[in-house]
C-alpha cells in the first residue's frame, strides 16, 4: 500500500498520486466523509424542529 516516493521533488500531492486513482480516492473520501455528518446533523435539526 505504501511505496517509496519516486518523484523528483517531495510533495504531499505527489505522495498521494503514486498509485492508480489514489489521489482521486483520497480526495473523494475526505470530501464525502463530512457530508455524512452534514446529513445526520441536518436530520436531527429537522426532527427537533417539528
Amino acid at each position: 500500500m505504501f511505496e517509496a516516493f519516486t518523484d523528483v521533488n517531495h510533495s504531499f500531492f505527489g505522495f498521494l498520486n503514486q498509485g492508480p486513482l489514489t489521489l482521486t480516492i483520497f480526495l473523494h473520501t475526505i470530501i464525502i466523509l463530512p457530508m455524512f455528518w452534514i446529513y445526520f446533523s441536518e436530520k436531527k435539526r429537522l426532527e427537533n424542529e417539528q
Partner: protein
Amino acid sequence: MAKKNVSVWTSVPFWRRSAAWVTGFATILLIWLSFDTLGQISMGTDADLKNGVDKRVPGPTVINYHIDYKMSKKRGHEVPVIGEKQLFFGKEWSEKDAAALLRLGKLTEQAKNCMDCHTLLGNGAYYAPDLTKAWLDPAWQKGGPMQGMTGKNTVEEAMAEFLQHPSQYPTHARMMPNLGITAQEAKGLVAFLKHMSSIDTNGFPRNFSKTVDQFKAGGTNAH
C-alpha cells in the same frame, strides 16, 4: 415526544450546506495545489547544480553540463541526467551570462513564434518536430545527419547554423522557413533548447528513446 419521519433529501438547508462544503473545500484545495505547483516548477540555481540538488527545472548554468536522457526503472519513464561539465559554444558560462542568454533565447522563441509549428513542453503545434527534447535528438549529435549537413563539430554550433540559414539545409521533412535569426539570437535559442531538454517533464514526450532506437536502426526520426 416521538420523532417524526423527516426527509433530509428534500431539505434545502442540507443541500446548501453540502454545496458550501464541497465548493469551499475545492477552492482551498485548488489554491493549495497552485502553491504546491509553484514550488515544483521554480527554477533551480547554480548552487543546486553544484550540490546535486534535484530540481524539476534546473538553473540556467545547466547549459555548462552534458545532458543525457535515460530510462528510470523506478519512475517508469525517461529522466534527464545532468552529467559532466561540457563547454557550450567553446566556453563555460557564468550564472549571469547563462541567464541573459536563456532570456534572449526565450524572447527570440516568442518573437519568432516557434510554437506556430513546433511543440515546446506540450504547448504548440505538431506541424514540425517537438522541440522539448530537441537537444538530445541523435540527428544533431556527432555522426548525425543534421550535424553532418551543417559541417559543424558540436551540437550547439550545428543547431545555431541551421537556425540562421534553414533554407540552405533542406531535409526530407517539411522545410523550416528563414526567420531572419541573428547569430546571437541563434545562440540564445540553442541555450533555450538545451535548458529545456534538462527539464524533468515526467517522461514527456513519451517514447523519445524508442524513436532514437528506430533512428539508430536506420529508420526515420522525423515525427
